[in-house]
């Protein structure tokens, strides 16, 4: 692994993002607008907004980073730039870390802006620390990035890559407890939810909303971070130097 190549890759990805200001604007503005929308959809149920506002804030980075990474990595694969890089003295970790730094920075700005709007303007409140919310949001961003990298190996077109979003993200959203408490679900679904990483992300965010940062919230954070690491390792194995 080389710091020079990692940083150059991060800078290159940033430069590419800068060439696409519309995507950056959407990444940053849409989550804020969705929080505002949620606030007024739940105008008559302020307690409900307090319950789901924070978890949703922490989950946005997961969705955006999943999509952005799946598409960008697919482009690297299909335009031959990945093949070129793999024939150069670049480590797979350099590439992954370079993307991680660039997209992580975007995720941090996204989470910061959304939190600013939600906590500052919409009067969303958390009992625990906002920093834990930020930590969980970043862990979710890395998790989304890792899953996006992984699925990019199984898509041959951008259409396919986008279709992985409903296939991988929406079931986790439905099962995590955001819409219906998991205790009210059928036993099989509860068991399924128990092995999905977004469940722990939701739990952690829900705990911070109502209480402080306790050992249970720490466990949730660790599970999400572990899942992200696992997905990243799986994703790295799809970066092959030799292809058929």
């Amino acid at each position: 692994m080389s710091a020079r190549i990692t940083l150059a890759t991060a800078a290159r990805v940033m430069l590419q993002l800068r060439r696409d200001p519309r995507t950056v604007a959407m990444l940053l503005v849409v989550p804020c607008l969705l929080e505002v929308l949620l606030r007024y959809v739940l105008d008559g149920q302020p307690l409900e907004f307090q319950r789901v506002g924070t978890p949703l804030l922490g989950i946005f980075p997961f969705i955006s980073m999943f999509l952005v990474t799946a598409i960008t990595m697919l482009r690297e694969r299909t335009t031959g730039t990945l093949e070129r890089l793999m024939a150069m003295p670049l480590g797979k970790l350099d590439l992954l870390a370079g993307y991680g730094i660039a997209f992580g920075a975007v995720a941090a700005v996204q989470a910061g802006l959304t939190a600013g709007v939600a906590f500052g303007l919409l009067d969303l409140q958390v009992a625990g620390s906002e920093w834990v919310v930020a930590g969980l949001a970043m862990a979710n961003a890395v998790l989304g990035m890792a899953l996006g990298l992984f699925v990019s190996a199984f898509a041959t077109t951008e259409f396919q890559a986008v279709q992985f979003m409903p296939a991988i993200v929406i079931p986790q959203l439905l099962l995590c407890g955001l819409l219906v408490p998991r205790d009210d679900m059928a036993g099989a679904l509860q068991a399924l939810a128990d092995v999905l990483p977004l469940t722990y992300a939701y739990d952690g965010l829900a705990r911070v909303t109502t209480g402080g940062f306790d050992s249970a919230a720490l466990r949730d954070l660790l599970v999400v971070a572990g899942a992200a690491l696992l997905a990243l390792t799986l994703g790295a194995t799809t970066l092959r130097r030799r292809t058929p």
Partner: protein
Amino acid sequence: MAAEPAIVVRDLLVRRGGVDVLHRISLEVPAATVTGLLGPSGCGKSTLMRSIVGVQVVASGTVTVLGEPAGSRSLRARVGYVTQAPSVYGDLSVRENLRYFATVLGTAPERVDAVIETVGMNAFAGRVVGSLSGGQRARVSLATALLNEPPLLVLDEPTVGLDPLLRRDLWGTFAALAAAGTTLLVSSHVMDEADRCNHLLLMRDGHILAAETPRGLRAQTGEDDLGEAFVRTIERWETEAAR
């Protein structure tokens, strides 16, 4: 010609999509030459080049490049590779692309302007690659491989669609590089480029039909025109295969 070949391929078998694409071929590429890899579309030129660079999964056989197994870590900075489809970032400018690849290769940033000059892209250095023509994009892709002046260059159809003057200049550059000790393996299906090579590999349907100098090929077939000489070689090879 140096004694030690830059590339040695022995009994290389490559299967793609369940079909044998290279049928246990063997060949050598002499060092410090421009070697042309010629053959019709689909005969396996790109597959052979990918095997030499070490990005192709091979079924069996050996590929030795600069004395080491193809794809070895230490070869990655010593083999320049240009894929057939231009592989550069469409949303970066010409110079930004080259700066990034220069950093990855650990090359001095001054080389960026030098290679832009070599491929005749000075006027477009600041242009975003996505807004360039296909041939211009191919030139940026070629420039990338020239950045770190590697001892071996593997170029997959680098001159397709280029204006004749620039094509002549680039072949001049290839010859100068070979004279200075670089080995170049250049694929093409344009016969008039064959004459610019020191050495030729003729390919068809995943077989190597001939490995000769242009002069040797002419002498062997009694044809002065290299295109005709290639046709004769194919005919002879097919009658031999039929027997």
